[in-house]
């Protein structure tokens, strides 16, 4: 039984970010140690993930992509089943058939994850159309990168959502990189949100490394979508702290850019907030980190103990 998380307090968001960070760090360490599948780390983008996901309600649905750990964990996914999926185990969310790049969890409303860049933009309109025509409550949040915004499907998706009045929160996680290409090599402007205007779509850009700010912007956007039924584009300006994929050594990354963004690390910032505004002690904060790491240790243990799928699964789930 999966439980959708909707806890919006700074502490609640912080715990989710810590769990995501511990997850990403564990998987990176396992890969470095050898004989573990590669993954796309969202380290550095935890605030963007949790701030948006926690602005959603249980009836809302999410589409995500290859860099999905933060979205899944913020929504309440079990890191044990996530790691199991990464490892190709039968207890993984997709029975091992997906692997790391396309984990969907229908019960949590995390729908149709695609690793084709732009795939989520292609599918989100249909998910929203179902909601609208079947008169189901809720909206659809669609996460995509600055790279995906270069694909033609970005244009087609936003235009259709606008013309058909589809309740979609488009979330562009502008993390400055598109695999091995810097965003600035791919577009002349720094921001994606201004593009929304040409579709008649409202938009804003938010500091994507500040969970509280993201939550606030996302809540306002979600509210507007619920009121108007119309799409909205939220750009979270953030940074991918690690390479595109486990083996990417970031040799091509400008060290000063990376250093700058590390000073804006979303978790350190939330700890500062918790310390300064909410009165948490250093010890309490350290304990939270430890707790997250322990949960991930347990998750890994679960995944390790899990069986591989039976070879007969090779040909199941092809047709309904």
């Amino acid at each position: 039984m999966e439980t959708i998380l909707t806890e919006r307090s700074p502490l609640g968001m912080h715990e989710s970010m810590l769990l995501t960070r511990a997850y990403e760090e564990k998987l990176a360490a396992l890969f470095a140690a050898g004989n573990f599948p590669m993954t796309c780390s969202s380290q550095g983008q935890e605030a963007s993930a949790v701030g948006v996901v926690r602005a959603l309600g249980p009836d809302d649905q999410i589409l995500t992509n290859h860099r999905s750990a933060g979205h899944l964990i913020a929504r309440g996914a079990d890191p044990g089943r996530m790691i199991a999926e990464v490892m190709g185990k039968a207890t993984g969310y997709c029975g091992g058939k997906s692997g790391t790049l396309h984990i969907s969890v229908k019960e949590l409303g995390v729908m149709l994850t695609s690793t084709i860049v732009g795939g989520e933009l292609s599918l989100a309109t249909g998910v929203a159309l179902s909601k609208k025509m079947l008169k189901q409550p809720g909206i659809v949040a669609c996460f995509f990168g600055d790279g995906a915004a270069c694909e033609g499907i970005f244009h087609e998706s936003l235009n259709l959502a606008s013309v058909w009045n589809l309740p979609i929160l488009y979330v562009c996680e502008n993390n400055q990189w598109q695999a091995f290409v810097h965003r600035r090599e791919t577009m002349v402007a720094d921001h994606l949100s201004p593009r929304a205007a040409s579709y008649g779509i409202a938009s804003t850009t938010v500091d994507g490394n500040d969970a509280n700010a993201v939550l606030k912007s996302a809540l306002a956007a979600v509210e507007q979508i619920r009121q108007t039924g119309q799409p909205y584009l939220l750009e979270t300006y953030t940074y991918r702290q690690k390479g595109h994929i486990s083996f990417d050594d970031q040799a091509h990354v400008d060290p000063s850019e990376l250093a700058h963004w590390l000073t804006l690390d979303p978790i350190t910032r939330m700890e500062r907030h918790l310390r300064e505004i909410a009165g948490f002690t250093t010890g309490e904060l350290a304990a939270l980190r430890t707790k997250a790491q322990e949960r991930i240790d347990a998750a890994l243990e679960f995944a390790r103990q899990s069986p591989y799928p039976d070879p007969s699964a090779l040909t199941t789930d092809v047709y309904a």
Partner: protein
Amino acid sequence: MPHITVEQAIGQALIEEMQHDPRVLIFGEGVATTQPHLVQQFGAERVRNTPLAEAIIAGTAVGAAATGLRPVIDMLFAPFLAYAMDAIVNSAGKLRYMSGGQFAFPLVVLAKTGAGWGVGAQHTHNLEAWFVHSPGLKVVMPSTAADFKGLLKSAIRDDNPVLFFNDMTLGHHAGEVEEGEAALVPLGKAVVARPGRDVTLVSYAKGMHACWQAAEMLAAQHIEAELIDLRTLKPLDEETVLASVRKTGRLVVVHEAGPLCGVGSEIAALVAEKAFSALKTPIRRVTSPDVPTPSSHALEQAFLPQAPTVVATVRSLLD
């Protein structure tokens, strides 16, 4: 039984299935404009024009299918599918499997094929083999009015993504067609359209009409061709094909699509694998040549597989 055209059969199937299931909707470029009666009967929500954007038309259908609707999309001409391959192949065809069975994709993709009206290779290209080659999809391509109706109805009721190819040059072809449930034709079943003992002709869509003609010409020469209409290209009804070849010992496959890695190749490979010992002669394919469809009528007619070629091919096996 009413005698109606293929075009009318398609129209009836849509109406009946939209009546039958309120989750069925249809959209595409001009769908609402060119079929105002559908808008009138089912409302503007269920019959929609779209922007000119094939990728999002298909993507929207896939997303909607996974979440409770049963979309039918009209992609107009098959070459335009080139813009929609990601949604169809990478999403609809794979995401059920990749999600471990969490999602299903009950949707129908309509696309027109068929040389013969001179609009050239960017409107006329038989692409069915691409989708037969891709996992997770079904592919239908009928030749008679009854099958157009019955298979479209079944495609709409199927819980999987179905590519429904409509050779538009058959639009005015007419035949007896049932109404309602009686009209249903199951996916995945070929039909012996004409029994015979000397040679098996396997075809589908417009190719069937060349084969019908050829079979008559052959009969006049005392050669009895057994004629198999595949109707569904995926899943393929292997048994019907194999049973026929086991009886006749000879196989000619006929289709308009290009020869290489086409459905004809697949049928030939199937028979060479599973009915080899029954074969008395080489397997032959009669297809268009491996070139883009020309526009000029003179060339286009030479491009199409025609009955005399089928006859000559059969005769070459028997002489």
